[in-house]
């Protein structure tokens, strides 16, 4: 029965802040094993759309469905348990802890060992191994013992991605994952995202500004503009649309300063 449902779907998803409609009746379905790029000018509602899906914001109207089941009223950790994972646009880590401990905590959450009161955390070797494995994948092994707050910005971005990979959810949402990374680090992360999609059959939503990144990764592009979904389709056809040329690719001045 799950076959007929897309893994993730939003129906008429809407949120209003006072008089401002930040996300306006967005209906969209996402299939397993696909990568969808979400594109739009600043203030178009891309991050807000993410917040509505992962639960940091509650919708004013409409619904979010995971495998056909409404999750609109669930809390953030409940949605995480069901398989929605999120990496943040502004780096959002555990700053006083070590890099390895950051990833280990994710592995621990996934193994549901958080309420284990009487064993020593280090005795759960499998969690440490998992952390080290993920750190090797994002090329952060050498920094494993450093405190996160002392890490350079680019490495913090990589760790942000590492946390999501360690969580390994069904749906992964990346919010400008490569912003602030040095040029030689970007391909490493893009390669990882590609692998997650093809090898692991995960569904990926990606907010991204760099057109070359979108062209290499995306199976599909949706365009948000003033909170509404204005275009949806294969990358080549969407990029060719006049509205995209006008609203996004800088042919006309983009609106800015609204809710991100």
């Amino acid at each position: 029965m799950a076959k007929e449902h897309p893994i993730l779907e939003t129906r008429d998803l809407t949120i209003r802040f006072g008089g401002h409609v930040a996300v306006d009746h967005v209906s969209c379905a996402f299939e397993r094993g696909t990568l969808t790029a979400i594109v739009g000018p600043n203030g178009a509602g891309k991050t807000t759309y993410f917040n509505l899906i992962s639960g940091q914001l509650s919708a004013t109207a409409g619904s979010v469905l995971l495998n056909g089941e409404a999750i609109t009223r669930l809390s953030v950790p409940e949605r995480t348990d069901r398989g929605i994972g999120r990496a943040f646009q502004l780096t959002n880590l555990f700053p006083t802890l070590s890099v390895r401990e950051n990833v280990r905590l994710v592995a621990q959450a996934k193994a549901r060992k958080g309420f284990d009161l009487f064993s020593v955390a280090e005795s759960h070797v499998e969690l440490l191994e998992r952390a080290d494995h993920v750190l090797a994948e994002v090329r952060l092994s050498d920094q494993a013992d450093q405190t996160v707050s002392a890490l350079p910005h680019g490495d913090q971005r990589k760790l942000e991605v590492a946390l999501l990979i360690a969580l390994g959810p069904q749906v992964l949402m990346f919010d400008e994952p490569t912003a602030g990374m040095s040029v030689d680090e970007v391909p490493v992360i893009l390669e990882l995202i590609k692998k997650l999609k093809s090898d692991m059959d995960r569904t990926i939503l990606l907010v991204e500004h760099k057109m070359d990144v979108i062209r290499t990764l995306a199976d599909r592009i949706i365009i948000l503009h003033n909170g509404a979904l204005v275009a949806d389709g294969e990358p080549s056809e969407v990029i060719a649309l006049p509205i995209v040329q006008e609203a996004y690719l800088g042919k006309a001045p983009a609106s800015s300063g609204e809710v991100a």
Partner: protein
Amino acid sequence: MLTRLLSGDTPRSGLLTALLLIVLISLAFAPFLFPGTKSLETAARICIFIVLVASYDLLLGYAGIVSFAHTMFFGIGAYGTALALSTTGPSYGALVWGTAAGAGVAALFALAIGLFSLRVKAIFFAMVTLAVASAFAVLVSQMSWLTGGEDGLNYKIPRELTPAFKLIKAKVFDVSINGKILAYYLVFFAAVILFLVMLRIVNSPFGRTLKAVRDNAFRAEAIGYRVVWYRTTATVLSAVMAALAGSLLAIWLRYTGPATTLSMEIMIDILLMVVIGGMGTLYGAVLGATLFILAQTYLHYLMGVAAEATSAVPVVSTLVAPERWLLWLGVLFILSVYFFPTGIVGRLRAGRA
């Protein structure tokens, strides 16, 4: 073996290890090393406050929760044991069920406060605990038919724990082994066990999650931790530990009253001990409590000596007059926060790296 007992959380600094060993050995052999009623009184107080301060650090340093209700939980434990002993007589049964009841009531209170107010902003939780603790203190002093009001409760404890009981006739190192010494060792070993249990908790997966919640509750939710439940559990655990420390105090003093358990002054002392020792490390509780109580007990004595010695020098002798000890304690506190913002333990561990 030792590392396992310490849950892998070794002091990680030579000087810190040495200081902790000095405290441990001094407390373990206090009746023989420092004979006399007053020094034994101080040693027992240090043991009890190490547990109390460590339990507060579990909340403040690990979970990042500011609470002003810690003395309330300390008091609930003390009154639990005191009421059981004073109403049903000095039996071990009363002692045990009174202590258990105190811990249970403290847990329920903590659960209720946690669930009602930990969802909201941290400052709001602090205010709620302040209000509840003040109301509780007023209630205890008003319900004098039960609690003895401001006078508190005097009661008997099992005879084996009182000075009247002699374990052996002969003296050991010139100290007679009476029930008071047994009571001291009850306090000492209970404190050691409770401390080791807390050390295990803060190094468990749960303790690590608390640190994550303290660092970034928003992200902790996003990786699947239910933050409210972690904060509430931390509040409950810390309340139970504080209540058990209160029971130890009730057994040791054979008296329980608002001034020894519930006063805001003790709450502030606990805060100072945590900060001086170093937040987010239980060893800080050991050093903070030991130094603070030693200063509290002996500073005015030391200053008396100093005033005597400098009596010829006019200004200095006035400055170090024994009645000004509280001023100097304040100065010491300000200096220690200024020079060791991460506490003594934080400073010592950083010095190693």
